[in-house]
C-alpha cells in the first residue's frame, strides 16, 4: 500500500538526539486555546510531485500534496487504534469473507455535491482495485451498497481484520468523487492537478516550480475545522535553502528530513524550532541488503548468512546516519507493535564466523586471498547508500570476497535492480506499514518476482515454505494465531537471509515552536493536518 515509486533524497540529523529532541517534540502537541486564522507554510525533504494527486500513489511527494485534500475511510491513531474518518465504523461478517462499512453522513465534496455510497463503491472498485491497492486486493471479489449509508466489500478468502483496517487507512486509498472521475481514465484526469475532494483543505492554485495554495474548506464535516485559513506547500530543492527559509520564518514546518544534519542541530539550538522522529511509525524506512539467487555462489544459505555476519550494522548506524538509524534485525521493523519479534535468527557482526561459514560452504580462500568475486550495486537515490556500499565492499573484502562496487543514479539503479536483475548483491531501501501483507511479504514470495516492477522480489528468492506461510498469514483471522505465523515468517526469513534490512532509518520533522498539533499521526506526511494551528 505504501508506494515507493519515487524515492527522494533524504538527509539525516546529527546529534539532535542529544539536544533535547524528546523534550522539544512535546511542544508539538496541543497547548492552550487554538488560534484561528493565518497561513501555514509547509515543505518536505523532497521535490515537487509529478501531479497533485496520482491514483496509484506515485511516491511520497504526491502523497504529501494530495493527502491534505483527500480523505480515507479510516485512520490510525498514534496509539495504534483504528478510527473512522469518512466511514463511521466497519465490521467483518462471521466468515470474514465480507466487511460491512457504515459511511459517514453529511460529508460534502469541495464542489458542494454530497459524498454518497456511490462514490465509495466507485473509489474501491475503480481506484483501489486498479491502482492504489492493486497488490493488496488480490482476493477482492466485489463491492456494493445495499442502502444509502452502508457499503459491503466481499472477498474470495477470509480477510483478517487488521489487514482490512490497514487497507481502509492505506496512505492513498482515498474516496474520490465519482461525478468527476467516472467515464475518464483516472490516471490522466485533469482533476488530478486541481483535485475535488472532501478534506479540510480546498485546492486553490498550483504555481509550478514553487508551491501549492490550499484554502480552508468552509463546509468541512468536522465542525469548526480547520483552524487555519490557508495552507501553502512550498518546494525548495536544496536542504540548505529550506533551512534558510525556515530560519527566516518563511516556512513553518518541514516533514521527512527537510534540512541537512548540522542545520537540524543549529535550528533546534536557537530554541525557535523543534525536531522530532514522531509521525513515521506507519512508514518506517529501512536500508536493505540482498543476495541474488541467480548467482550460484548464493545458493547455500550459509553463504548468504556469512555476508550479513561480515557487516557491522552498528558502525553504519553510528557513522553514516549519525545515530539516526538502528541496526535492522528482522524484515518486520521494531516500531511495529503488532508483529515485530526479537525471536529471530541473528546474523550479528562476526567476521570470524563469516569466514568459517564460507570455508564450510566450499569457498576457501584461494592463492590470491579471495574466495569469489561479486558485483555490489548501491542504489544512488540516497547519498548514504553509496557510503554504505563503500563500507560493505571493505567489510566483505575483509572476509575474502572481492567486490566491484557501482553506485548508479536513481533511474539506472531501478532498472538494474528491478528490471535487469544486474547485480550479485544490492543495497536498496523500502518503507513499510505495520501490516506485512503485501508490502513486506512481496519481497520474499515467488509471486513477488515481477520483472520491471520496482520494489518487489528482485533477488529471485523462491521458497514453497515461505509462499505457503504467507498464504496462511493472508487468511488467518485469529489475531493471536496470525501473529504467531508472522513471527514464524520472520524466523525463516532471517535464517534464509535472501534480503534483510541492515538498518532501520529514522525520519525527522522540523517545525517552528509556533506550530501546534503536529506529528500526531503515525504517517504524518500523509495525514490531512485538519487540526494544525499556528501560535502567535
Amino acid at each position: 500500500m505504501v508506494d515507493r515509486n519515487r524515492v527522494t533524497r533524504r538527509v539525516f540529523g546529527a546529534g539532535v538526539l542529544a539536544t533535547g529532541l524528546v523534550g522539544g517534540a512535546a511542544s508539538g502537541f496541543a497547548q492552550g486555546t487554538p488560534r484561528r486564522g493565518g497561513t501555514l507554510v509547509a515543505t518536505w525533504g523532497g521535490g515537487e510531485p509529478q501531479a497533485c494527486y496520482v491514483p496509484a500513489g506515485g511516491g511520497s511527494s504526491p502523497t504529501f500534496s494530495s493527502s491534505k485534500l483527500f480523505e480515507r475511510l479510516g485512520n490510525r491513531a498514534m496509539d495504534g487504534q483504528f478510527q473512522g474518518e469518512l466511514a463511521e465504523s466497519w465490521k467483518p461478517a462471521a466468515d470474514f469473507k465480507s466487511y460491512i462499512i457504515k459511511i459517514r453522513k453529511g460529508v460534502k465534496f469541495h464542489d458542494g455535491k454530497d459524498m454518497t455510497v456511490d462514490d465509495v463503491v466507485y473509489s474501491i472498485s475503480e481506484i483501489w482495485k486498479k491502482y492504489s491497492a492493486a497488490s493488496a486486493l488480490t482476493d477482492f471479489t466485489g463491492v456494493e451498497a445495499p442502502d444509502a449509508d452502508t457499503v459491503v466489500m466481499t472477498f474470495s478468502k477470509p480477510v483478517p481484520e487488521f489487514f482490512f483496517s490497514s487497507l481502509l487507512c492505506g496512505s492513498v486509498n482515498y474516496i474520490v468523487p465519482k461525478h468527476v472521475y467516472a467515464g475518464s481514465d483516472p490516471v490522466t484526469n485533469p482533476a488530478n492537478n486541481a483535485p475535488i475532494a472532501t478534506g479540510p483543505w480546498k485546492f486553490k492554485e498550483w504555481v509550478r516550480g514553487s508551491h501549492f495554495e490550499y484554502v480552508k474548506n468552509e463546509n468541512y464535516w468536522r465542525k469548526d475545522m480547520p483552524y487555519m485559513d490557508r495552507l501553502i506547500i512550498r518546494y525548495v530543492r536544496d536542504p540548505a535553502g529550506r533551512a534558510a527559509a525556515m530560519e527566516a520564518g518563511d516556512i513553518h514546518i518541514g516533514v521527512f528530513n527537510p534540512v541537512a544534519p548540522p542545520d537540524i542541530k543549529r535550528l533546534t539550538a536557537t530554541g525557535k524550532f523543534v525536531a522530532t522522529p514522531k509521525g513515521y511509525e506507519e512508514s518506517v524506512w529501512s536500508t536493505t541488503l540482498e543476495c541474488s539467487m541467480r548467482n550460484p555462489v548464493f545458493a547455500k544459505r550459509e553463504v548468504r548468512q556469512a555476508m550479513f555476519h561480515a557487516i557491522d550494522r552498528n558502525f553504519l548506524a553510528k557513522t553514516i546516519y549519525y545515530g539516526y538509524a538502528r541496526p535492522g534485525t528482522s524484515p518486520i521493523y521494531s516500531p511495529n507493535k503488532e508483529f515485530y519479534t526479537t525471536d529471530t535468527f541473528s546474523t550479528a557482526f562476526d567476521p570470524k564466523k563469516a569466514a568459517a561459514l564460507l570455508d564450510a560452504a566450499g569457498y576457501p580462500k584461494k592463492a590470491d586471498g579471495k574466495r569469489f568475486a561479486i558485483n555490489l550495486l548501491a542504489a544512488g537515490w540516497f547519498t548514504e547508500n553509496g557510503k554504505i556500499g563503500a563500507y560493505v565492499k571493505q567489510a566483505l573484502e575483509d572476509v575474502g570476497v572481492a567486490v566491484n562496487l557501482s553506485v548508479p543514479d536513481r533511474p539506472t539503479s531501478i532498472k538494474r535492480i528491478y528490471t535487469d536483475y544486474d547485480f550479485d548483491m544490492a543495497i536498496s531501501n523500502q518503507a513499510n506499514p505495520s501490516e506485512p501483507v503485501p508490502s513486506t511479504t512481496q519481497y520474499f514470495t515467488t509471486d513477488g518476482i515481477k520483472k520491471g516492477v520496482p520494489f518487489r522480489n528482485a533477488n529471485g528468492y523462491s521458497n514453497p515454505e515461505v509462499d505457503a506461510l504467507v498464504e496462511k498469514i493472508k487468511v488467518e483471522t485469529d489475531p493471536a494465531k496470525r501473529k504467531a505465523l508472522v513471527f514464524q515468517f520472520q524466523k525463516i526469513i532471517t535464517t534464509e537471509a535472501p534480503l534483510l534490512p541492515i538498518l532501520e532509518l529514522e525520519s525527522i520533522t522540523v517545525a517552528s515552536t509556533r506550530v501546534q498539533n503536529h506529528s500526531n499521526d503515525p504517517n504524518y506526511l500523509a495525514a490531512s493536518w485538519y487540526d494544525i494551528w499556528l501560535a502567535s
Partner: protein
Amino acid sequence: MQRLEFIGRFARNRGALIGAVLILVVALMALLAPLFFPVDPLRIVGQPELWPGEDPDFPLGTDSLGRDMLSMIVHGARATLLIGLFASAVATLIGVSVGATAGYFGGWIDEIAMRAAELFQTIPNLIFVLTIVVILGSTLANIVIAIGIVSWTPIARMTRAEFLALRDREFVQACRAMGMGDFRIIAGEILPNALPPVIVLSSLVVAGAILFESAVSFLGLGDPNVASWGRLVGDGRQLIRSSWYICAIPGVAIMITVLCLNLIGDGLNDALNPKLRDR
C-alpha cells in the same frame, strides 16, 4: 642545442616554471603513492571526521567514514592525473585525426567533419559528459572516453586551421610533385609543423579533463572503486558547514593542479611560438 633553447624559453616564463615544478611534485606523489600508503586508500582506518592535526596518525584528518584524507589525496593524485592525461590523449587523437583529414582534403569531407564538430560543440559539455557516463556506466575508462568525446572539437578546429594554412605551401607542393602519398604528407610533413599550437591546446585539455572528472565525481557519478579528488569534494559536500576541510583539501589540490597545467600551457605557448621568441 635546439632542445636547450626550448627549455630556456619555457623557463623564462616564471609561472610556467613554477607550474612545471609543482606538477612534477604531484606526478611524483602519484607514482610513489603505493610506497607511502600501501593500504587501500578507501579503507576505513580511524575515527570519522577527525580534523587535520587532531591525530598525528592522520595529518590531514579523516573523512565522514574515517578514511585517511592524506592517503586519499596522494592516491587521488594518481587517478586524477591519469584521467587528465588519458582523456587529453583521447581528445587529441580524435581531434587531430578529424582536423587533419578535414583541413587537408577540404571539400565535402571538410563540410561533414566541421558540421559534426559543430554538433558536438552545441551540446553543453558537462551535460554531454554526464549523459555518456550514465549510459555507459560509472567506470574510470568510461569517464575518460566521455571526457575525450566532448573535448576534441577545439583541437580539431585548431588542427584544421593549421592544415589549411600549410597544405598549399611550397614544401607540401614539392612533396606532392615527388609523388608522396596523402598519408605520408599529412603525418610526416604537415603534422609536425602544425603540432606546436595543438600541444598547447592539449595541455589545457588535461586541465579541463580534471575539472570534468571532478564535476562528474562531485555529482556522485564517479567510479566508486577509485579515490579521486572530485569524489572527495562530493563526499564532503554534505558536511560543508561542520567539517569543511573534507571539501577544502581536495578542492585546493584540484585548484593548484589545474592552475599549474594552465601555467604550463602558457609556457609551452611561449616556447613553441616563434613569433613570441624575443618578447
